């Protein structure tokens, strides 16, 4: 008879195993691949793999002139396309010391905030969908279409507009712009209450988000988590307040800070930000001064040799553009400091020890856009 050999058998609960979340996974909002190390249902560690949508935008910028680069920045963080354009435009204007007409600055500020609302609305849709509430998807996108209508009327396109150019705007706003924006604000002030009724007050959603994925203030600073995700941890990082550009030093708005740093606080930050953005728009919309929609720029824009940096507050955090110019019409080197990349880096840290279902909620609350991570 054969002898029974007693092999050392590991208990299943102790065994650690890896699963791939993505690249095709509906809750990663794109093609992010997370290699999740699990013990049972508990996330032990997590490793994001980037590059599934690496389009080499930084490298392409080295071949393009500055007005052309605007079109590429649109496609980085497509949900805050205007704000990305704004960063490059401000950088070029700062380098050339161009005086931009007052009208342009007003319009840019309003459009940036509209873009921020649209971005947060889409985030709200997808966050609700991640938590299993499909109604959010329909409600959020219904209201987002109203903003897209305004964009379409004035800028001729729905998602990627390339509306800003160095020195001004592509074209003037539509005569209906002010009326439509005011109608929208009036409409959305009522509708945002529905958002709270549907999702914020929902007990299932609260149970799943409160105390989950806590990010401390120190960690937020050391990881460089900015935007609503950073502010939820109490990290005062709003570029609009710290390093004001456009009209943000003249308008009255609050930089909302959270204390908890959990998923629910990150959720509430964005809900508050939508209200603050509406407040900013309301202050400006009646006061758009008359004038030119663009400063006079040379046909070929050449930046003087040197290094330039400009930051703006995109919908997801601080977007920085760094340019090294050698005096020619194309940049020598262009680097984007994208908010999503830093926000993703903290995912491993805050999701250790949570259940795998909570990982979806945490990912949703960090609100990453994958083409902005990979660029």
């Amino acid at each position, binding site marked *: 008879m054969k002898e029974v050999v007693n092999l050392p058998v590991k208990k299943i609960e102790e065994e650690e195993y890896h699963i791939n979340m993505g*690249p*095709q*996974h*509906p809750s990663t909002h*794109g*093609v992010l691949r997370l290699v999740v190390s699990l013990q049972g249902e508990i996330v032990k560690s997590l490793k994001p793999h980037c*590059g*599934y*949508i*690496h*389009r*080499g935008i930084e*490298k*392409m910028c080295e*071949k393009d002139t500055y007005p052309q680069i605007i*079109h*590429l920045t649109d*496609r980085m963080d*497509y*949900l805050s396309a205007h704000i990305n354009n704004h960063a490059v435009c401000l950088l070029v204007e700062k380098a050339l010391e161009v005086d931009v007409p007052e009208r342009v600055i007003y319009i840019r500020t309003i459009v940036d905030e509209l873009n921020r609302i649209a971005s947060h609305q*889409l985030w709200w*849709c997808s966050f609700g969908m991640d938590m299993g509430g499909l109604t959010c*998807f*329909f*409600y959020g*996108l*219904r209201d*987002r*279409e109203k903003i*897209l209508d305004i964009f379409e009327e004035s800028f001729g396109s*729905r*998602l*990627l507009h390339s509306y800003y150019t160095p020195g001004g705007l592509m074209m003037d706003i539509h005569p209906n712009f002010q009326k439509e924006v005011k109608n929208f604000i009036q409409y959305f002030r009522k509708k945002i209450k529905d958002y709270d009724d549907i999702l914020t007050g929902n007990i299932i959603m609260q149970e799943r988000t409160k105390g989950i994925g806590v990010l401390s203030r120190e960690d937020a600073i050391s990881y460089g988590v900015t935007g609503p995700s950073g502010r939820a941890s109490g990290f005062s990082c709003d570029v609009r307040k710290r390093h004001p550009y456009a009209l943000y030093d003249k308008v009255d708005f609050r930089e909302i800070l959270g204390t908890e740093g959990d998923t629910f606080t990150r959720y509430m930050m964005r809900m508050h930000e939508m209200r603050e953005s509406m407040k900013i728009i309301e202050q400006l919309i009646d006061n758009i001064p008359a004038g030119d929609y663009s400063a006079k720029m040379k046909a070929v824009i050449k930046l003087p040799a040197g290094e330039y940096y400009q930051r703006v507050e995109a919908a997801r955090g601080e977007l920085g553009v760094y340019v090294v110019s050698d005096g020619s019409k194309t940049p020598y080197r262009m680097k984007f400091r994208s908010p999503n990349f830093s926000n993703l880096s903290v995912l491993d840290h805050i999701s250790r020890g949570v259940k795998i279902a909570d990982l979806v909620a945490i990912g949703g609350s960090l609100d990453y856009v*994958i*083409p902005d991570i990979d660029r």
Partner: protein
Amino acid sequence: MKEADFRDNETLELFRKQGGNILVTTLDAVMDWGRSNSIWPLTFATSCCGIEMMATGAARHDFSRFGIEVYRASPRQADMIVVAGTIVNKMAPVLKRLYDQMSDPKYVIAMGACAVSGGPFFYNTYHVIRGVDHVIPVDVYVPGCPPRPEALLYGVMQLQRKIKLESLTDPRKTQNLK
């Protein structure tokens, strides 16, 4: 030009009018009606076009009027893959695998300039697949950067016309094209 080279829906519909076996064509009509009106897309989006695809599925444009009822997260439950966004070299094997995992009959819509031809990333790049048809066969191309939801709806309607020309005896090929 050979008969097989005609790919546009108008010509194919003309060919179909030439008739066939009454039993087969009746069955075909029933099958095609069912197939073309219940195309379930895969939840797959790589970049900007994905947002417009979401908008197409949402309240105003409402995909499901055309039977594109639900987005399925698993390729095994999906009939159609809308390639929404740029496909880079690293993503191409994944896309191929997703396509292989889908069960027949399966259809592909290349949505947006990137999926059609590489789009804005055609020049000066080292990493972008210049058209998704290098990886998987494409049924309908929807140009635009990104295409409007109406454009995607039109593309879907064209796909439905194409499906309605399928035959039971000869799937993925039109009738009378022997």
